[in-house]
Structure formats: structure tokens, C-alpha cells
């Protein structure tokens, strides 16, 4: 399965070894990929001391998600993780606004899934609940690499997530084959008699009652219950008819084989009668010899172990549910066999406030500051050339003294600072231009992946082109130098009508005639500070 994952933090370690591609942070642009099978949406809340910002972040995710959903390839499954906070700052212990916003967000996800068959919601708290907060967060990695979740949980995550995917694919078992003695009740009917078997309110009867109630609940959810027991049929029918404590009755049992034949033949016969595959069956029997027999003769059947003590039933029942009976959504078929449920009428709707991406962008209140190189930002500029791999047209690596050298040679070196209503991303873009007479050459153009997906790169370049033109520059030349990591900018300059002067497998050289370029217009989506 190949996944494309939309995310806003670093989560690559959690999918190590899988066939996945990752979006930019908060980037909802779609990559054309024929081989992709499904999408995953996993947005995590950041650590912020201001709770109001968290609320805004949640609203932001909803807008992004709505916009993204409309652009996804329709029939491919989308797995969306619920939102859960692992950081929490309780300034005011009665301030539940964040919990409320998270809850409502997850409700909206539910109604999104209810309306769209290809969208499945996975509750991430099912994973988080296994860990304490100390285990969930490794602060070192949070600050070093924007990973809110402790990377040491990766392996556990993969196991858990694989199981969730199975559940969303609805691979649950269809039928349980049950023994009777010491399985549904304590004791042996043939020996202890009707009065002697234990199903009453005191121990161990009450544990067996719990198990019967559990099975009844499975039955209501569409699981077929059957019996395979070495007993006299007459005796069992008597239990069903007159025992005051029996919960699982004849009407709940779809078919049974109560005889003294071997259980493998009986179970095969049950499967044939019900016309279901052996791999849809779960066989539950307290007797390890019987369990071993079925494991050997009918290996497709799931044969869980049975608890040694009745007081261990509850824990064991949870694991039965987890391994065999969890389902994502009950189908009509399932429900036809079960009681009707009342529908939840008050579902909130997932909506974007914004009709299109540009209005969404405007709402972010993005401020772009374009500043020339100076002795302070030169450090960060050099660092950007060293670290930026993806949105980097030429991938030249420079030190501070290289950049100082450029400054001394009158190159134009401008950094881009990006701020929005959520915070300040700092210096995250860089352009280095060499100018000779009326010709300019773009030596370096790069943006940090943190600020991609918002067309900021377009604005930055346009601003520089206009500035160059106003200075009297007539021709702008540039290069795209191909690397393993920068294929996303392969056609970047083409968007601005640069012409290709030369091209090979490894490189493209461009030029733009600025005299003829009359329609470079800055957008009003961003506030530009220069």
C-alpha cells in the first residue's frame, strides 16, 4: 500500500520502512502519483503557551482539510486521525475551550466520514491512551525536529496502526463457535446437572455471565453465534428452557452441533451450513486439547487462548474484540440482524469558512518581510543554503564567508521572513543574484519547507523581478540543477515564463526578458514589508 500523508509536523520515523510520501508542513497541494493507493491526514497540535492560538490552529486545520478533501482523487481511501492534545497548559482549570474545540473538531470528522464512504476516521487516542505524558513527548526531539510525538514510540505505532487499517477495511470475523462446559458456564452439565452449573451472581458464575452478556452484545452487532459441545442435546435444551440464570438462549444461537462426534467435523459442518469461509470463524473452548485439535486440523480458524481463571475474562474479552471483532462501520447487513439504533441527529458539519484557497490564505494574515543581508542574518542565510534541499533551485552550499564575499562583490542577497497569525517562522527564504551591467543571474533561490504550500515563493520571486526591472535590468538568467530532492521545483521558472536556453538530464538554463515582462503583479494576499 502506498500512502500520501498530509501532515503539519515531522512524523517520518513513524512510517519508516513503509511506502509513503509526505506533504510539506501544512501543505495541501496534491502530487500526481498513479501508484498511490490511499491518503492519510495526521495533523497534530503544537506546543503553544497561548491557548487562544491553539483554538485558531484547530480552525485552521478544518479549513485546510475541507479544501484538501475537495481536491483529492475521489475513489481513493482517506484515513483521518482524530485530533488529540498531548500538551496542555491549565491556566484556568475551568477553561474547557480547547477540549471543546477538539471534541467538536472530531465530531465534524465523524460527520465527514458518515457522508463519504471513502473517508475513515481513526481515533488516535486509542494509541495515546497506552502511554503517560512523559512517554508521549520527548522534548528534545520536539525542539530539534518539530516532532510532537516521541519517536521511540514508532514501532508500537506501526503495530497499532496496521491493526487500525485492518479494522477500517472491515476484516472482522463473522462467527463464533462456542463450547459450553466451563466456557459459557462453570462446571460440566453432564456431571453437575442443571442445578450444579455456575451462572449465578456469585463467583465464578458472575464471570461466566459477563462472558454471555459480551457474546450477546456481539450478536447484536451482527456476529453469528454457534455452539459446538460434547453434551446431550436434551440436557442443553433444558438449560435453555428453564435455567433462571442463562443469558445466551436458543434464539441467539444460529445453529449448533451438540453431540459426541469430533469437533473438527462438527465445525466444518457449521461453516458449510452457514456458507462462510473457515477463516471467518473464531473457536472458543476452555479445553486446550480441543483447541489444539482445531488448530492442527483447521488452521484457518482463529483459536484464541482461554483464560485460566474466570476473573481474567474481562481483560480477555477486550482482546477478543480488539483482534477479531472490531469493525469500522456496521453495514446494512450487520444491522439487519441486530436491533435498531437511534441515529445521532446533532452532528456538526465540517465546513470551510472559505470558498477558495486564496481567501483561506488571506485569512492567515501572512506578512512577508524582504530584507537585505546584514551581519546578523548572514548566519541564518548560510545555514539555509546548507540545510535546504527540496525547494532549492541550484543547491549551492555556502558558508558565512562565501556570503560575505558575495556582499563584497555587490551581489543582491535578500532574505525572506514569514510571519502569520500563528507566529513568526523567521528567515525562511533566500535569493542570491549576481548583476553585471543590465543582466542578472539568480545564483540561489530557496525556501524552507516550513513555508511551502502558500504560494509565498511566487510572491518572493515576483517582488525581486519587479525590483530588478526597476533598476534597469533587462535580462534575468537562472538555472535549475537537478538533485534527488528538488524535483518539486523542476518547472518552477517556467511558471514565470522564463524561456529555456539549454537543457539536459541534470540541468536547465533559463532566461527572462524583463523588458517584455509587463504583467508581473503582486498579490494582495500578503502584506509585504521591505
Amino acid at each position, binding site marked *: 500500500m502506498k500512502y500520501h500523508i498530509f501532515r503539519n509536523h*515531522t512524523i*517520518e*520515523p513513524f512510517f519508516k520502512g513503509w511506502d509513503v510520501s509526505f506533504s510539506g508542513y501544512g501543505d495541501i497541494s496534491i502530487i500526481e502519483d498513479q501508484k498511490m493507493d490511499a491518503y492519510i491526514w495526521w495533523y497534530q497540535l503544537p506546543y503553544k503557551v497561548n491557548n487562544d492560538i491553539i483554538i485558531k490552529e484547530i480552525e485552521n486545520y478544518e479549513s485546510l482539510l475541507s479544501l484538501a478533501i475537495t481536491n483529492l482523487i475521489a475513489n481513493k481511501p482517506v484515513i483521518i486521525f482524530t485530533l488529540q492534545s498531548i500538551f496542555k497548559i491549565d491556566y484556568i482549570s475551568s477553561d474547557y475551550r480547547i477540549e471543546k474545540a477538539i471534541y467538536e473538531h472530531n465530531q465534524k470528522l465523524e460527520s465527514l466520514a458518515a457522508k463519504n464512504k471513502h473517508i475513515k476516521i481513526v481515533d488516535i487516542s486509542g494509541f495515546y491512551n497506552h502511554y503517560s505524558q512523559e512517554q508521549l513527548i520527548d522534548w*528534545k*526531539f520536539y525542539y*530539534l525536529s518539530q516532532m510532537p510525538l516521541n*519517536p*521511540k514510540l514508532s514501532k508500537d505505532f506501526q503495530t497499532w496502526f496496521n491493526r487500525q487499517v485492518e479494522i477500517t477495511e472491515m476484516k472482522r470475523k463473522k462467527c463464533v463457535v462456542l463450547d459450553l462446559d466451563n466456557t459459557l458456564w462453570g462446571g460440566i452439565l453432564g456431571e453437575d446437572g442443571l442445578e450444579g452449573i455456575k451462572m449465578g451472581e456469585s463467583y465464578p458464575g458472575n464471570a461466566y455471565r459477563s462472558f454471555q452478556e459480551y457474546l450477546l452484545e456481539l450478536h447484536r452487532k451482527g456476529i453469528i453465534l454457534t455452539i459446538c459441545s460434547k453434551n446431550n442435546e436434551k440436557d442443553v435444551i433444558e438449560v435453555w428452557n428453564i435455567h433462571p440464570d442463562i443469558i445466551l438462549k436458543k434464539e441467539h444461537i444460529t445453529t449448533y452441533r451438540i453431540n459426541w462426534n469430533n469437533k473438527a467435523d462438527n465445525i466444518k459442518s457449521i461453516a458449510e451450513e452457514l456458507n462462510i469461509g473457515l477463516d471467518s470463524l473464531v473457536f472458543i473452548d476452555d479445553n486446550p486439547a480441543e483447541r489444539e485439535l482445531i488448530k492442527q486440523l483447521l488452521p484457518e480458524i482463529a483459536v484464541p487462548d482461554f483464560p485460566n481463571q474466570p476473573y481474567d475474562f474481562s481483560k480477555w474479552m477486550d482482546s477478543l474484540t480488539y483482534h477479531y471483532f472490531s469493525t469500522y462501520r456496521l453495514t446494512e447487513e450487520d444491522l439487519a440482524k441486530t436491533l435498531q439504533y437511534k441515529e445521532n441527529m446533532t452532528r456538526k458539519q465540517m465546513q470551510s469558512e472559505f470558498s477558495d484557497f486564496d481567501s483561506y490564505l488571506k485569512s492567515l494574515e501572512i506578512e512577508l518581510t524582504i530584507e537585505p543581508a546584514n551581519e546578523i542574518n548572514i548566519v541564518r542565510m548560510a545555514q539555509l543554503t546548507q*540545510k535546504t*534541499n527540496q525547494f532549492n533551485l541550484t543547491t549551492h552550499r555556502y558558508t558565512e564567508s562565501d556570503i560575505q564575499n558575495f556582499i563584497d562583490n555587490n551581489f543582491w542577497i535578500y532574505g525572506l521572513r514569514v510571519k502569520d497569525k500563528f507566529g513568526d517562522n523567521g528567515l525562511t527564504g533566500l535569493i542570491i543574484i549576481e548583476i553585471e551591467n543590465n543582466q542578472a543571474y539568480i545564483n540561489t533561490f530557496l525556501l524552507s519547507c516550513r513555508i511551502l504550500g502558500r504560494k509565498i515563493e511566487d510572491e518572493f520571486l515576483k517582488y525581486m523581478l519587479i525590483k530588478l526591472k526597476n533598476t534597469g535590468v533587462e535580462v534575468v538568467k537562472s538555472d535549475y540543477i537537478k538533485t534527488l530532492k528538488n524535483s518539486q521545483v523542476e518547472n518552477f521558472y517556467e511558471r514565470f515564463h522564463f524561456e529555456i536556453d539549454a537543457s539536459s538530464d541534470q540541468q536547465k538554463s533559463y532566461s527572462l526578458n524583463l523588458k517584455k515582462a509587463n504583467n508581473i503583479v503582486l498579490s494582495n494576499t500578503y502584506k509585504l514589508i521591505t
Partner: protein
Amino acid sequence: MQANENASLSTVNYKRMKERVKDLLKSVLELDTISDEISQYNCERWDSLNHLNVIVALEEEFDLSFEPEDITSMNSLDIICSKIERLMQ
């Protein structure tokens, strides 16, 4: 004059540790072979994301915790081994 016996790991222990590190790097970076000179500069797969995976794996393998300053400098087999040696004393 007493020799400082704790100045470094014994040669045998150092070699053992280095083999563990090499195996770990091979596994995390998904390499068939690995040279003693391996570093982020000569191994394309050892990018910043895989460096993270390397560090996490090292911390779990040796039950150590590296400080951020060390993490950024641990970009070759040799440097990794010397950091581990220092912490293991």
C-alpha cells in the same frame, strides 16, 4: 605512577561497540555494505531525517541520551563512536 584506567574503553570493548554502531547504521540507512569512513557527507541516504532515525536507534540500542549539541555533530561513524565511548565511561 598510576595509569588512568578509565580514560577510554578497552580496545576490545571499543571494537565491540563500533560493530554494534555499524550494524545499526546499516539497518537504519538500509545499506548492503558499510565502510569505516561512512559519514553524512559520503552517504546520500544519511540525510537529516535518517540522521534522526539513527540517533533514536542509537539512544535505544545503548540506553543513552544524547544532547542536541552532540546530535548535530554526530554525523560520521567515528564521531558517533567517540561520543558513545565518552558517555559509556
